[in-house]
Structures are given as structure tokens and as C-alpha cells.
């Protein structure tokens, strides 16, 4: 990589000494009044005692400490930089060269996860959340990665999907499988509606308007109490069923439970595992769908629009329909993920659909690398596991920021930046020879 090609950085001793001297001077200026002078009580009155020896020790400690820190840091930073860029390059090379094999391995692992020895309902639950974010990441990648339309309010479509699913299920008694596609269509419609006012906008302006749209949806969810039940949220959303079999200890009249039907003992984990497989299938379908779209005229038009809108127009491509289709398809995927989220949680409230969610999904897409949809997977794992480390809850944002900085330093175009062409003229180099 580029960093290895650089000659090793030499220690600039003069600069380091100067830096340490400045640190010592600052320490002296601070320590003189703070440490050097102490007020003491002498017979009920306040007197002053000087402690210049302590000041000298402190200043010397600062000087030496700064010197050692600098020396160590120069070496560490250099080594870290080399390791970081090498690891990133290796990861990219592994995925690039053996992409079929590595994808298959990851897929096998994902399918087998609930039955692996170290697995637990908690772990499967976390994996379910990872997959929700993977799916959202792939949906947002259509809008941001392919079409290049920066959307800061993607969570709005997630919310529309979740609420429309909940209301369809509770008001009209639709089952999970009936309400799911309707929720997706509803979210797609919202994407279409949002698309119209922002057609003329690009870049920063588009980002601000989509941000506003996300906030509007959130505010509506908070305040439209007759429909959304306001901040209290919606309870008792029906869970997914397997061909009518419910995952409960005892079924309501007329329904059969999963464990009775298969003569298994009831276990709450069955429900968790079933939900995991649903989102796994949904996420995989999303991936197949978006990868296929990328190889179709519509997908290439999205990418062309990202590259140059004016050239698109000169080639007879209507930017309006291209943008609207990107918004609608991205929104549909977000809506489907939202519907699944509502069914899995059985409860939704506006709390789940804040700007932080939008930012998180966007971060997944950016961290993963916008050229390659597979990058979304490690990015989603990173983000969700940071959220799940409850002991570190206070430092979550700190770690998250550090991860962002690290990615931007070592892999500024995302974990997997390589963009594969949507079609090739030459299968490989040998064919040309």
C-alpha cells in the first residue's frame, strides 16, 4: 500500500525536545500558582507557604513524560499505520480474490448460527438486529451508493413500514405475510412522494430536505395520537407465523402452535430463531434484488446519474424517473425492514425512529464502502455490537467515532471500496492475449 512505500519516518530529536520544553513551560506556568503556593492557617489567619521543590519535580516529570510519549508515539503511529493499511488491503484482497468462497462461508455461518454450540437466544437476537441493519444498509445503498442521493432521513421509511404494518395488523387483522408486502408498498409510495419535492436538489440541499422529512415523520408519530398512539407507542403487534402456526406457549382459540404441531417441547428460543431466519431470508432477497438491479438498465442509470446528471439528460435518460425509482425502491426495502422490526418487537414507539438511527444506517453504508454492497455486513456487525456492549454504553459514541476516524484514515472509501463493473467485455485478461 501507499504507506509502506514511504521511507521510514526518522525521529526528529530537535522537534521532540522543543515540544517537551513547551509542555514543561506550560506546566511551570500552571504549577507555580497551583502547586508552588499553598495557603495555610497560622493562628487563625491565612498565611502562605511556598513549595518550589514540588513544582520542580512536577515540571521535570512533565518534560520527561512528554519526551517519552512523543518518542513512543512516533514509533507506534508508524507501526499502526503500516498494520492498518496492510490489514485493510489484505481484507480487500481476500474478499476480492475469493469473493465467491468467502461469501459462501459467511452465508453458511449465518444459516448455521442458531445451532452452533456457543449460540444462545441472546446472540441470535443480536444477530437479528445485525441483519435488520444489513437490510437497511442495502436499501439505503440504492439511494446513496448507487444513485448518489444523500438521504439523511432514511429512518422515515423504516418508520412508515413499521407503523403501517402495525396498523394493518391491528386494525384490519392482516397476518404478517399479508401485511409485509403492503407495508413495503406503502413505504415505496412515501419514497415516491418525498422524491417529488427534492427532484431539483442535489448534495447538501438534498441532505437537508431529507433530514427534515425524517424529523417530520418523527413529529407526526409523536403527535398524531389517534392513529399512532403518540409517544406511548403501539403494543401487541402480532408476531410472524409459519403457515398459520404461532410461536407461543398456548395458542388462542382457532390457532395452532408451532411446538404442538411438530410435537416438540415449547421453548421461547423457537420464536427467536424463527424471526432470525425470516430476516435472514429478507436480507438475502434484498441483496439479490439490489445486485440484480445494478446489472439492469435502471441500475446503470442510477450510477450514471450519480456520475453526471447533465450527461444523462443528453443521452435521453429522464433524471426524474431515475431519481424517483431510486427513492421508491430504497424506501420499499426500508419499509420491509420496518415491518419486520415491528413484528419482531411486538411494540413500536417514535423512540425507535430518531435521527440517530438514520445517521447509524448511513454510517453503515459509508463504513462498508459504497462501491461494494458486501461491506455493509461487517459495518453492521460493528455498529450493532457497539450498541450491545452495555458495560461500555457511555463510551459507545467514543468507540464509534474512533472507528469512523480509523476507517477514514486507512480506507477512506470504506471497508470494501472496489466497485465491480456491472458487465464486462473481457472475461479475464487472458482472453485478450
Amino acid at each position, binding site marked *: 500500500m501507499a504507506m509502506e512505500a514511504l521511507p521510514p519516518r526518522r525521529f526528529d530529536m530537535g522537534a521532540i525536545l522543543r515540544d517537551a520544553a513547551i509542555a514543561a513551560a506550560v506546566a511551570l506556568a500552571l504549577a507555580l500558582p497551583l502547586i508552588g503556593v499553598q495557603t495555610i492557617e497560622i493562628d487563625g489567619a491565612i498565611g502562605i507557604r511556598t513549595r518550589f521543590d514540588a513544582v520542580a519535580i512536577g515540571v521535570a516529570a512533565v518534560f520527561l513524560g512528554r519526551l517519552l510519549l512523543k518518542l513512543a508515539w512516533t514509533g507506534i503511529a508508524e507501526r499502526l499505520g503500516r498494520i492498518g493499511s496492510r490489514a485493510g488491503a489484505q481484507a480487500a484482497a481476500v474478499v476480492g480474490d475469493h469473493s465467491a468462497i468467502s461469501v459462501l462461508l459467511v452465508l453458511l455461518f449465518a444459516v448455521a448460527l442458531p445451532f452452533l454450540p456457543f449460540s444462545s437466544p441472546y446472540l441470535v437476537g443480536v444477530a437479528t438486529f445485525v441483519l435488520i441493519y444489513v437490510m437497511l444498509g442495502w436499501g439505503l445503498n440504492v439511494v446513496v451508493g448507487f444513485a448518489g442521493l444523500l438521504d439523511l432521513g432514511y429512518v422515515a421509511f423504516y418508520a412508515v413500514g413499521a407503523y403501517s404494518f402495525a396498523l394493518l395488523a391491528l386494525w384490519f387483522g392482516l397476518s404478517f405475510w399479508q401485511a409485509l408486502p403492503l407495508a413495503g408498498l406503502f413505504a415505496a409510495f412515501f419514497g415516491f412522494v418525498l422524491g417529488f419535492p427534492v427532484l431539483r436538489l442535489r448534495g447538501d440541499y438534498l441532505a437537508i430536505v431529507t433530514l427534515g422529512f425524517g424529523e417530520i415523520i418523527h413529529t407526526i408519530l409523536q403527535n398524531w395520537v389517534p392513529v399512532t398512539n403518540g409517544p406511548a407507542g403501539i403494543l401487541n403487534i402480532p408476531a410472524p407465523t409459519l403457515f398459520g402456526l404461532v410461536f407461543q406457549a398456548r395458542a388462542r382459540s382457532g390457532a395452532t402452535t408451532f411446538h404442538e404441531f411438530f410435537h416438540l417441547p415449547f421453548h421461547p428460543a423457537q420464536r427467536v430463531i424463527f424471526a432470525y431466519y425470516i430476516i435472514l431470508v429478507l436480507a438475502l432477497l434484498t441483496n439479490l434484488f439490489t445486485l*440484480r438491479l445494478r446489472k*439492469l*438498465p435502471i441500475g*446503470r442509470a442510477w450510477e450514471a446519474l*450519480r456520475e453526471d446528471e*447533465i450527461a*444523462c439528460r*443528453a*443521452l435521453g435518460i429522464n433524471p426524474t424517473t431515475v431519481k424517483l425509482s431510486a427513492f421508491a425502491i430504497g424506501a420499499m426495502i426500508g419499509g420491509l425492514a420496518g415491518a419486520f422490526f415491528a413484528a419482531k418487537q411486538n411494540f413500536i414507539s417514535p423512540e425507535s425512529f430518531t435521527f440517530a438511527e438514520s445517521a447509524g444506517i448511513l454510517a453503515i453504508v459509508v463504513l462498508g464502502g459504497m462501491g461494494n454492497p458486501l461491506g455493509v455486513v461487517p459495518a453492521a456487525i460493528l455498529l450493532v455490537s457497539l450498541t450491545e456492549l452495555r458495560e461500555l454504553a457511555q463510551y459507545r459514541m467514543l468507540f464509534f467515532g474512533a472507528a469512523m476516524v480509523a476507517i477514514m484514515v486507512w480506507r477512506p472509501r470504506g471497508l470494501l471500496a472496489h466497485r465491480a463493473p456491472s*458487465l464486462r467485455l473481457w472475461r479475464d485478461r487472458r482472453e485478450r492475449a
Partner: protein
Amino acid sequence: MTIPSEPPLLEVEHLTMRFGGLVAVDDLSFAARPRDITAIIGPNGAGKTTVFNCLTGFYRPGTGRMALRASGKLFLLERMDGHRIAREAGVARTFQNIRLFAGMTILENLIVAQHRPLMRASLYTVGGLFNLPGYRRAEAAAVEKARHWLDRVGLIEQADHVAGNLPYGAQRRLEIARAMCTDPTLLCLDEPAAGLNAAESAELNALLLAIREEYRIGVLLIEHDMSVVMEISDHVIVLDYGRKIAAGPPAAIRNDAAVIKAYLGEEESEELPPEIALDRSKGAER
């Protein structure tokens, strides 16, 4: 070269385009014949690119009519959106500052240009999702057409390379190939020879002449390179301050007093740029 009775491909009448107080194009009328290369020349800021932007729908002209005859129909370009002008009337263009899809491969650039037929063949994405045979055939045909044009402009080897990494001259050729992939009736080229060396601009001349001969389409050309203009154009229109100051075959334009004045200021200028001085002396010999 042209049959005089043939109706013109493009007729521009009284075209005027204002930007605030500035009149960029002032009451311009001209016609372009099919199978002709019509050059529009003029000093910097004469309004040449503005004419192109009006023709291709990027600007809405204040007044004027732009009528294009294509496949037996008459299109009034001043009433159409940019993408419809390209798609229905078949006006393709290149840009002064090259506008390729820089992050996509060369082949992809040419496939995007065939968006319309491919979109229809994919049944507006539904059929393409399931890779129906009709779409597969259309895609193969599109790749075949791209292959043909890559061969023509000498970029077949680099087909899968990213377009943005190509050298300048190759980017210009690719942009022309991309415009040709839309099956145009009128090809508008905005300074295609800018930044090309002598050998490259000779290649460009050959390519444009071949396009005119084989595809029998009209070519509208904005160019500063007089070696290109004088060698390949059938008809030259000279603009200055948005007005047409001369029109005719290249030989006549070369010696037109108004044109010389527009380019050089006064007739009796002592310091002519060498190539123009040479040009003039050559013209006098003829």
C-alpha cells in the same frame, strides 16, 4: 455532396437567448442539412455553446423556432425537455468539458447510452429481474454495438477500464462513441478537437467524415481548430456577439472580410498569429 432539393434536417429561425441584459444569441437563423457537417465558429463568447444548449434543451430560448425533421416527423425542439430531445428527436451531443461517467467503465458508458432500448427490452425492469430471453438478447445486441464503436475509436482493449482514467484524447473519442450509441439523427459536437495534438485531430477528422458517410446523419460542429473546420465541414456559420456574421462553404468563409475582422479586430493588423497568416496566404493562392 448534398442534393439541393433535400429539405434541411434542422432549421433554426430567429433564435434569441437572453441572460438578464446579455443577449447571448441574437436573432440567429440557419439550417443544417442531413449528411452535412455544419461548423459553427466564432471568437470566444460568441454564443456557440449557447446555441447547442438551446438545441439540446438545456436552455429555454426566449424566442425562435428550432425544427428538426427526423424519421418523417417534425420536432419543435424549443418545446421539448432535454431528455426527450435526445430520445425522440435523436439529437446527441458531446460537451466542451468532457462529461463521461468517470467512475464507470468504458463499456458501461456505452451501455448507458443505450438506456431506452434496453429499458424497453427489460419490460421496465420487471422482465430484466428474471433475465427473460428478450432482455438477454437486447443486452447482447447492446454489447455488440458498444464493441463496434469501441473498435472504431480504438478503445476495445481498455473496454473494462474506468473511463475517468483514460487520457484526454481517448476521453474525447469515447464521448463521441457514446453519443453515436444513441443512434442519433443529429450529432452535436462541442469542440471535439480541443486539447488534441495534430495526429489525434487528423484521426478525429477521419472519424467524423466516416460517420457522415456511413451513418448519413447530420453533424453540427463547434470548433476552434481551423484545420478541422476547413478540412471537413461542408458549411460554416460564423457567430460574433450572438449574431450570424457570415455563412457559406469553408473557402468563402476563409476570405470573408467580416470574419477576419471578428477574429483579428482590425483588417490591417500587423501581428497575425502564424497559422492564420499562413491560412490566409494559402487561401489567396487558391
